[in-house]
């Protein structure tokens, strides 16, 4: 699709750069001499105009740039101010409005990465600012105007998961007018919320508020509901996904009237998963009364009829409408959609992995989910909270919090968000039915942070629920009475407790779906260290996946309560709706350009591409780029040994020019750093915002991904006498481009080996993983490298220069 010759637009006119050095009030001018920087900029090649200005991003500042572009015939603009992560879009727009292609704009970050981190060294900060401007000007001179391609977006959406989040997202999209496929792997939609008795903090009946929504989904003309189905394959990219769904047979047709006569005669029983195993169901069943679709289903693992032999025909005979059909077979449904919403939910923690609490051994130790079914009027005990051992109503009940949350055991250090309020709600439910019950809640911290939460917490305390800080170390059962002893330390009163209760409820945490790896792989999305799906930006794009066209709703992204799930679902539907309403999307022009004449069709680039956006055409001796699928990491460009491929707007020449600019003077005192846009660069910005101070030796070059950093960049930096090189990217597993940073690691490790072979100190090349929140990690790395480079002799630098072919 892309050919280098066509893409490399001729831009033969004289390069005329305008430079604007922003004071940002005193934010920059307080520690950088902006006038001096502007004066310096005017001496740089191609610069025809250099100004310093108080607030460049203001309306007046923008108007000034626009009129300068016209008056001075500027064809490149450099603004030295804050981070491009903040105002690059603003100034790009200014350029566009003045008739200049927006890719002819470049920014120098002299606030977050200069004035704010060198507050007390005006001289050094000014020198560094000059360097940063010089780098930006060097890159600007090589910038090319670029056109963004537009990709059409199908006006259909797929929602994976039919819990409350999936239901809300599907309804919102369907009501907007889009066609929606809702895929649920259980026989009914409803998810976790359908199993809960009451919701906090309002004590609404959970299924009563959910059932109408479920029914709406079932009847909506724009929703195609696929239950008992699983997504098995996803191909394509934003706007154009091709999805395969395996629809497993129910063996009961749509003619089913849900009368239940079949289940009455079915001779096989098993615990009902919906009731956490506390009630029975038959082989032909409906998981719960309000199930949507209401159609019954036959569980073939239980049914006597196996391998096509009808051994038992009781249900068939009982069914008046003749809705049972054992000839149904699995089918694969293929659909095309423009957007995908992932609402796959979460699993609950299995407390039997904690032997000290005795779950699975002591019958009267139950989980919070079992409690929900016991207290529910439609549950196995008809709403009576009974002890499983003797079916008596307990007089003393203990709740244990943070079971499977906030613990270093089991590697679940996160807070599950819902358990504190769920327990408070549960304790009030007990008090409501049996006011005399003694209730103890053993907690670490009570987190009642939401609207109305604190009031509920206060109510529970007023009702006499006893909150004791300090989880029990152990639960011991009295063999005769089946009562339970809780032994632990009250950490507020600093004394040991030993409390006897009739029943213990373990407030189990939420964890990622055990098979979320499948969805991760199918959709090429990332997960956090704990395994929940990772959003594109924690603050500003909280429901978007880093992969275009994919959005998150509900617990799949992180544990959350019903309200937050619904909010997020509506947000995800709105985000997906924005894309589909436009019907097309411009893809940032940072995709690869190929030079087919240099291509040897080795296929290395196709192997490192995290998006499968490159196709090797061996017969044509070249690779083809699917621009719409490309994420824009540039790791292909770093991999190509023949320079047959480079990344637009981050070309080899542009980055080399930046390196050359850094190393022009006193390179032996400088650290050349390559930081990825999403983690390390953002982390360096965060260090600035937090005013963390570090030595001014470092010059940061921004790439979209650390995977863009080609070994030849490192080579060039050393060949020109740089004291050290830092390559910094996202933590492994957190890469914005799925896994491109594994290539970074591979390349840096290979470079270390090479340095060793050349007899060079490999410490001079450093690799750092730092997230956008880890400013201090970056600052301390720079401090550490500052100490390291002070010990490097000029002789060693000369030796390195020679080793890498420098002067």
């Amino acid at each position, binding site marked *: 699709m892309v050919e280098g010759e066509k893409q490399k637009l001729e831009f033969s006119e004289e390069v005329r750069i305008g430079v604007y050095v922003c004071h940002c009030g005193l934010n920059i001018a307080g520690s950088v001499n902006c006038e001096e920087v502007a004066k310096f900029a005017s001496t740089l090649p191609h610069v025809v105009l250099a100004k310093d200005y108080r607030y460049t991003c203001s309306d007046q500042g923008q108007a000034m740039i626009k009129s300068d572009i016209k008056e001075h015939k500027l064809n490149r603009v450099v603004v030295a101010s804050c981070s491009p992560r903040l105002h690059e879009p603003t100034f790009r727009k200014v350029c566009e409005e003045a008739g200049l292609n927006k890719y002819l704009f470049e920014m120098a970050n002299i606030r977050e990465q200069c004035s704010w981190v060198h507050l007390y060294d005006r001289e050094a900060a000014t020198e560094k600012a000059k360097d940063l401007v010089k780098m930006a000007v060097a890159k600007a001179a090589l910038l090319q105007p670029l056109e963004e391609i537009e990709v059409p977006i199908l006006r259909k959406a797929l929602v994976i998961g039919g819990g409350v989040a999936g239901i809300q997202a599907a309804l919102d999209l369907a009501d907007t007018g889009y066609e929606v496929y809702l895929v649920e792997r259980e026989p009914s939609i409803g998810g976790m919320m359908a199993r809960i008795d009451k919701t906090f903090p309002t004590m609404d009946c959970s299924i009563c508020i959910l059932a109408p929504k479920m029914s709406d989904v079932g009847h909506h003309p724009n929703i195609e509901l696929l239950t008992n189905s699983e997504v098995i394959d996803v191909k394509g990219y934003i706007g154009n996904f091709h999805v395969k769904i395996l629809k497993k047979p129910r063996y009961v047709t749509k003619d089913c009237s849900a009368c239940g006569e079949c289940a009455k005669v079915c*001779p096989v029983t098993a*615990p009902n998963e919906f009731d956490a*195993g506390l009630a029975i169901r038959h082989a032909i069943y409906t998981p719960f009364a309000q199930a949507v679709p209401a159609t019954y289903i036959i569980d073939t693992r239980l049914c*006597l009829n196996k391998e096509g032999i009808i*051994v*038992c025909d009781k249900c068939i005979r009982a069914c008046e409408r003749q809705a049972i059909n054992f000839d149904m077979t699995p089918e694969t449904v293929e659909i095309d959609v423009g957007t995908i919403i992932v609402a796959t939910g979460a699993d609950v923690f299995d407390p*039997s992995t904690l032997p000290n609490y005795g779950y699975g051994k002591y019958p009267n130790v139950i989980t919070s989910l079992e409690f929900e079914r016991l207290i529910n009027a439609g549950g*196995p005990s008809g709403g009576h909270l009974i002890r499983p051992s003797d079916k008596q109503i307990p007089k003393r009940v203990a709740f244990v919090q943070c079971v499977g949350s906030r613990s270093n055991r089991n590697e679940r250090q996160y807070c599950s968000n819902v358990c504190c309020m769920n327990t408070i709600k549960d304790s009030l439910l007990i008090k409501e039915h049996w006011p005399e019950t003694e209730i103890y809640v053993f907690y670490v911290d009570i987190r009642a942070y939401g609207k109305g939460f604190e009031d509920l917490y206060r109510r529970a305390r007023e009702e006499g629920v006893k909150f004791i800080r300090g989880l029990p170390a152990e639960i011991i059962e009295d063999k005769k009475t089946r009562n339970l002893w809780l032994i632990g330390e009250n950490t507020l009163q600093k004394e040991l407790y030993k409390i006897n209760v009739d029943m213990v409820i373990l407030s189990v945490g939420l964890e990622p779906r055990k098979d979320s790896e499948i969805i991760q792989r199918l959709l090429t999305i990332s997960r956090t260290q704990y395994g929940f799906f990772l959003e594109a930006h924690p603050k500003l794009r909280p429901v978007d996946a880093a992969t275009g066209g994919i959005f998150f709703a509900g617990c799949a992204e992180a544990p959350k309560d019903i309200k937050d799930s619904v909010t997020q679902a509506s947000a995800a539907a709105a985000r997906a709706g924005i894309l589909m309403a436009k019907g097309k999307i411009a893809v940032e022009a940072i995709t690869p350009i190929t030079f087919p004449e240099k291509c040897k069709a080795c296929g290395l680039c196709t192997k490192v591409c995290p998006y499968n956006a490159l196709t090797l055409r061996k017969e044509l001796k070249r690779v083809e780029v699917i621009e719409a699928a490309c994420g824009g990491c540039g790791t292909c460009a770093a991999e190509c040994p023949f320079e047959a491929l480079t990344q637009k707007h981050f070309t080899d020449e542009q980055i080399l020019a930046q390196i050359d600019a850094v190393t022009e003077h006193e390179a032996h005192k400088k650290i050349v750093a390559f930081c990825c846009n999403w983690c390390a660069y953002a982390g360096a910005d965060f260090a600035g915002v937090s005013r963390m101070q570090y030595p001014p030796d470092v010059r940061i070059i921004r790439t979209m991904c650390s995977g863009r950093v080609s070994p030849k960049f490192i080579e060039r930096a050393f060949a020109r006498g740089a004291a050290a090189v830092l390559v910094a990217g996202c933590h492994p597993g957190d890469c914005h481009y799925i896994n491109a940073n594994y290539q970074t690691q591979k390349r840096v490790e290979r470079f270390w080996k090479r340095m060793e072979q050349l007899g060079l100190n490999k410490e001079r090349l450093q690799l750092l993983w730092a997230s956008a929140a880890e400013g201090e990690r970056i600052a301390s790395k720079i401090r550490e490298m500052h100490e390291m480079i002070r010990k490097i002799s000029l002789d060693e630098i000369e030796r390195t220069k020679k080793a890498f072919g420098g002067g």
Partner: protein
Amino acid sequence: MPERIWRKPLDSEKAKLPKAEIHIIRDQCKGCGYCIQYCPQKVLEESNDINARGVHPPRVVDESKCVLCSFCTSVCPDFAIFVIEKKECKENVKHG
């Protein structure tokens, strides 16, 4: 719903499954073994006894496992086995 299920359901007594009474006409059996092979609940096994036709007739292993599907009756070529629902009274004579 992948959470672990380990308890006996609280209402398992409430589920009124029919109790079976299996009748085997031993001397009519020719020992083909179809009933043993096709029983979905594996209620039957070959006995050591020898009947009038000189073969081993089937024997009931666990009558409580029988769910009265009567497939044994359907497959028996010699009409030698049938199942009826056990009445809830104590004087039941066990056959087989």
